[in-house]
């Protein structure tokens, strides 16, 4: 699993404060810590920075590149800011995060990616929003995103399609569809584009104590449908353990065996099965309840584990 570290994100109060003070040490420490924790690239989500983009984007790139060598993902809707950041890159091939299938964005952003030899994250989202069904999301990739890349001779191998994870708290019907979208996107083109998602979005607006569980169960399901790249929290040890168990096919613990079976069932296009769960083990029961909400079979509620 290729993890793009998510922790430099403007929604975090600490990040916001450190950015206001241009605290280079804060960002360098956070960058190093993420890479040491296993992140193979770093997402830099700075927001639009409408007033100071010209200075902030290059500053952030320079600051982080002084500390780490990994690819940086410039995550913003401000294309001028992204371009300013790209000009400052001196190390690994950067990533632009992101373009959507809206005409204006799709016109402009890929040209910038091509000019700077950046990889490009493309969202399966059109002007009427994010479709629920997997097929419609895949269609956006086939009918809009990939054709635009071909049109400007942008290598599909540098394209990263993001079929969009939405929160189980409020957009529950999207959760099972995303799993199928990830599966199908792998066969839409030869060579296939990379596929990445923002995993932690699945637990937005979920109480903090349940977020990690929901993230890692969803991660196991998505690995079953073939996910190999994601923007995620590299500090989440439990999540990394699930990734390890599935990648190494380690069924030596009962919980590990369950995660592996969930992933295998999804891979075989089956639904995860209650037959694989030891209901006398509270940890496995929690995992099973989480599978059920992620499959949209049981309605999510904050206290869903207490039910």
């Amino acid at each position, binding site marked *: 699993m290729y993890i793009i570290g998510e922790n430099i994100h403007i929604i975090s109060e600490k990040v916001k404060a450190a950015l206001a003070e241009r605290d280079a040490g804060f960002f360098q420490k956070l960058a190093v810590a993420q890479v040491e924790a296993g992140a193979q690239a770093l997402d830099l989500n700075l927001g639009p920075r409408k007033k100071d983009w010209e200075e902030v984007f290059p500053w952030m790139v320079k600051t982080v590149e002084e500390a780490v060598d990994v690819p940086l993902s410039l995550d913003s809707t401000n294309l001028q800011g992204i371009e300013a950041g790209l000009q400052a890159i001196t190390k690994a091939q950067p990533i632009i995060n992101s373009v959507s299938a809206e005409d204006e964005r799709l016109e402009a952003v890929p040209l910038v990616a091509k000019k700077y030899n950046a990889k490009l994250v493309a969202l399966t989202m059109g002007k009427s929003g994010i479709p629920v069904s997997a097929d419609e999301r895949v269609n956006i990739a086939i009918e809009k995103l990939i054709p635009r890349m071909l049109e400007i001779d942008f290598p599909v191998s540098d394209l990263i399609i993001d079929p969009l994870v939405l929160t189980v*708290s*409020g957009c*529950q019907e999207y959760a099972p569809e995303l799993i199928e979208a990830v599966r199908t996107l792998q066969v839409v083109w030869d060579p296939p584009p990379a596929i990445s998602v923002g995993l932690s979005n699945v637990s937005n607006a979920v109480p903090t104590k349940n977020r990690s569980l929901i993230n890692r169960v969803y991660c196991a399901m998505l690995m079953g449908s073939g996910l190999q790249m994601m923007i995620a929290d590299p500090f989440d040890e439990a999540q990394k353990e699930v990734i390890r168990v599935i990648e190494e096919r380690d069924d030596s613990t009962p919980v590990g065996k369950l995660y592996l079976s969930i992933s295998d069932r999804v891979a075989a296009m089956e639904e995860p099965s209650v037959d694989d769960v030891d209901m006398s083990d509270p940890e496995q029961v929690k995992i099973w309840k989480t599978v059920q909400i992620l499959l949209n*079979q*049981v*309605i*999510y*509620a*904050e*206290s*869903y584990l*207490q*039910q």
Partner: protein
Amino acid sequence: MPIDIPMDNWPGSVKTVTLGATSDQGGTRSSTVTIGGDQSLPFMHFEKPTANRPVIAMEIAPARPAEWSPVLLETWSEVVDDPGAWANACEEAGADLIVLQFGLKGAGDEPIAADLATSAVKTVLGATGLPLVVLGPGQAEIDNAILVPIADETKGERLVLGLCEDGNYRTIVASAMANDHLVLGRTPMDVNLAKQLNILMTDMGLPLDRIVMDPTTGALGYGIEYGYSVMERLRLAALQGDAMTQLPMMVNPGFETWKTKESKVGEGVPEAWGEWTERGVNWETLTAVSLIEAGANVVVLRHPDSLKRVRAAIDDLMAFETV
């Protein structure tokens, strides 16, 4: 050519909830009302018979509700000044249940005092034999101040007490548990929040068959489709076996429609809108019947003509049961 009608066979069902208690059962009601028990989507008679038909509650207030449409006040005439007489008039009009709704203010600008609220409840209980729902204005302090003594003083009646909401349910649930009452939980048009509140209330030890839920809805033309979807989704989840959604639903088309311009305003509106009273009654009736189709077990109405029309619609919808 014979046609096979595709049928769903649902693993789950809605809980059966009985409102009110007769003297044998520890209360004073002349009859009780049982709702819920649904084993299929509404009126899918060919799948499962409807366990209990939807019921109609009429809303009354402890004193003349100044903010009500003049159409309603004129229709009910002088009974609106006396909750006992009003409840009685509702019973005569054919109501199954009475909803006594307290407002934010009593006679003056202050909230109604707890003892006056309690005596209003007793007046209504004395005037009618129908089961009773007693609702505070939905403001924690006032709700708790009036509902606790009401629950104590009417022990055993199996009243439905509300509003239980996300931020205020503990006191009301505890009072209901101690005095053999039921509760109404209300959440703002959101399946996740509706389920969460049910989990929280049952966590306190209140059995599921003593909870009615109000998922909230909008009037026709004012968001009814959102309310409809939420109710439909809750009902589907219940039938699929999700225990914390398996509660009967009570919604308020009366309140929702009589605050819309179409119902509330008689002058300065296009002539094409037609006669005022007829328009208001239509609005209330159509909203209520739509919500019954979405799975409402109780609709709370305000106009007696709407009561008659909704009753006729329910009779029609139930007619297949006897064919």
